[in-house]
């Protein structure tokens, strides 16, 4: 099982930069990805997410800055390849081999053979729910199944540091839950997972989220921290008997220092925190109510606006 040999940050980047021709892709990027966590890198296309991941595995050289991977300078990252799992946006499988043969091949590259390989392959096929298909050619699989097999091949050697570029594209929600349960199990065993995604609900599941934009890290924190950083607060929607009751409730709440307004026939009250809901309910008695948590996408929209 995974047990990290290194307690410091899994990835540590200080003022790293990379230029492709005239295009400056990474601009003095600073990122620290702690050990044994799930870290999600979010950001628009072309913000430098994939370039950053390729720099971590040594596929591109940096123009400047300091980058350390599992405590080692990135120059020596080749010596760490047996501890790193890398899943590219290409699915990197052989369509003319069966699922079993694909997994056996990647297991072999990492020196996993015989009984150990068989056990590991069984376990992974279970996790990605492909066991009944093990004898099929990978080329005959649907897009989502192909994706799952690719993930299984990346996990074959139980890497300490997992770099997953858009790993859950085309995977149905039920299975995505299975993936996340598995990812959480891996981090609890000491693995670090770095994910890039476009899906906000995916980012919400990560312990830390970094928002990249134009080659820089704009913000980093837990999903909740990012929401409050963007100035987003939860709000409460209250339905009263009729419109006049709504307006009087709103003015009563305003008198007590709440920001409240009537919107689409209901009262909306901004809360500094969820605990304020009890105070609101002492002042007014609605027929029905609903609590709205701010979402990460709202946070990023806000952060994006502030940037402009």
């Amino acid at each position, binding site marked *: 099982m995974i047990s990290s040999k290194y307690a410091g940050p899994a990835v540590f980047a200080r003022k790293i930069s990379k230029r492709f021709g005239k295009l400056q892709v990474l601009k003095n990027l600073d990122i620290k990805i702690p050990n044994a966590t799930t870290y999600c890198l979010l950001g628009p296309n072309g913000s430098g997410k994939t370039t950053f991941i390729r720099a971590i595995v040594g*596929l591109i050289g940096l123009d400047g800055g300091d980058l350390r991977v599992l405590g080692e300078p990135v120059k020596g990252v080749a010596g760490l390849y047996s501890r790193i799992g890398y899943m590219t946006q290409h699915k990197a499988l052989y369509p003319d081999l069966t699922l079993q*043969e694909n997994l056996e091949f990647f297991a072999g*590259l990492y020196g996993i053979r015989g009984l150990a390989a068989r056990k590991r392959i069984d376990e992974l096929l279970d996790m990605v729910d492909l066991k009944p298909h093990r004898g099929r050619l990978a080329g005959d699989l649907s897009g989502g199944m192909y994706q799952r097999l690719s993930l299984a091949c990346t996990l074959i050697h139980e890497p300490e540091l997992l770099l997953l570029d858009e790993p859950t594209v085309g995977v149905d929600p039920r299975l995505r839950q299975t993936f996340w349960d598995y990812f959480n199990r891996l981090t609890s065993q000491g693995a670090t997972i770095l994910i890039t995604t476009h899906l906000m609900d995916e980012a919400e599941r990560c312990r830390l989220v970094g928002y990249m934009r134009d080659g820089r890290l704009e913000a980093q924190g837990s999903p909740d921290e990012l929401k409050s950083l963007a100035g987003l607060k939860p709000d409460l929607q209250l339905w009263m008997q009729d419109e006049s009751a709504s307006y009087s409730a709103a003015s009563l709440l305003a008198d007590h220092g709440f920001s409240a307004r009537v919107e689409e026939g209901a009262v909306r009250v901004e809360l500094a925190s969820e605990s304020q809901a009890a105070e609101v309910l002492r002042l007014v008695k609605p027929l029905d109510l609903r609590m709205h948590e701010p979402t990460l996408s709202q946070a990023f929209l806000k952060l994006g606006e502030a940037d402009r």
Partner: protein
Amino acid sequence: MISWDRVLVVALRVVRQLKRDRRTIGMITLAPVFLMVLFGYALSGEMSGVRLGIVDVGADGEVRDHLTSVKDFEILHLGSESDAEKMISEGRLSGAVVMGKTFMRVLLDASSPQVAGLITSEAGAALQKAGDAKENTREGLLLSPASPGSYMEMKQQILPARPVMEIRYVYGYDLEMMDSVGPAVLGLVVFFFTFLMAAISFLRERTLGTLEKFMVSPLTRLEMIAGYLAGFSLFSLIQSATTLLVVIFVFGVPMRGSVLTAFLVILLLGGAALTLGSLLSNFARSEFQVVQFIPVVILPQTVLSGVWWPVQSIPASVRPISYLLPLTYSSDALRQVMLKGASIGDIIYPDLAFLAGFFIITLAAAIAMLNRKVG
């Protein structure tokens, strides 16, 4: 350090993939057989059905008899030279011979040099025969009552001596075209298929994204190429075995040397084709572009490396290129092994040395190119 375990893992995968591709297997094993059979008949040097017109305006019987006895010709007797010309220009005759008492005119269609050459040489042979016959007649007139024992002596005294040609083969026997071409085509076939398969396989590794994945795994570039070498070698051996069987048992080409020596040459040539293929795959974006390498890489070799005709017959201005092509050396080495019975020691320089050098240089370049693509 190279991990042979990982080399084996790659080799096993390559074999598994090829094994599943039935059509490619069929191509690998049957195409050489098909090509050899085709070449064997095309190159047998025998022509037939050459339509030759004869316009006889009082020729010697010997001339006419010789031409009508050549089995390659289909003879048409014509009334006049203008008829013959007309039929040649209409394509109904390949040529015509106008024969008189004191002259012979050969009318030819230049569009097929081989056919024209056959007609010219047979017409020349016919004249020669007629001349010999006349000479004998003259000798007969001079010496008719003489005893046969003194005939040669007297002939040498009276007539100017003609040079006598004697042919002696230093090795082998009177080789047919196929004997010389067979061993060289063996190399050509292995080179062609290995080059093409390697270029496409490495291109696929790149487009599938597996190459990038290897870059982030313990597999080194050398191990990857070595794995391919091992996997493809198995198929090169199967391919050369079937080709050899056809060459030896169907065409009767001798195998005077050791089969193992021939296989060594083939493996070295296959290795060179594989590394060249993997190197050039870097310059192709699609399988279609790989196919475009055939006229650039394969065709010049088939023409310039002495497969069909000797390197010595290639114009001196182009010949230096011949000496840079691996097929030049494999053709020579395979001919030496099969026809002369050469051992490894006999072909080590320059043939094996060049093939090994070519392999090592393209291997180094292919590995460097893999590095560059990433950095």
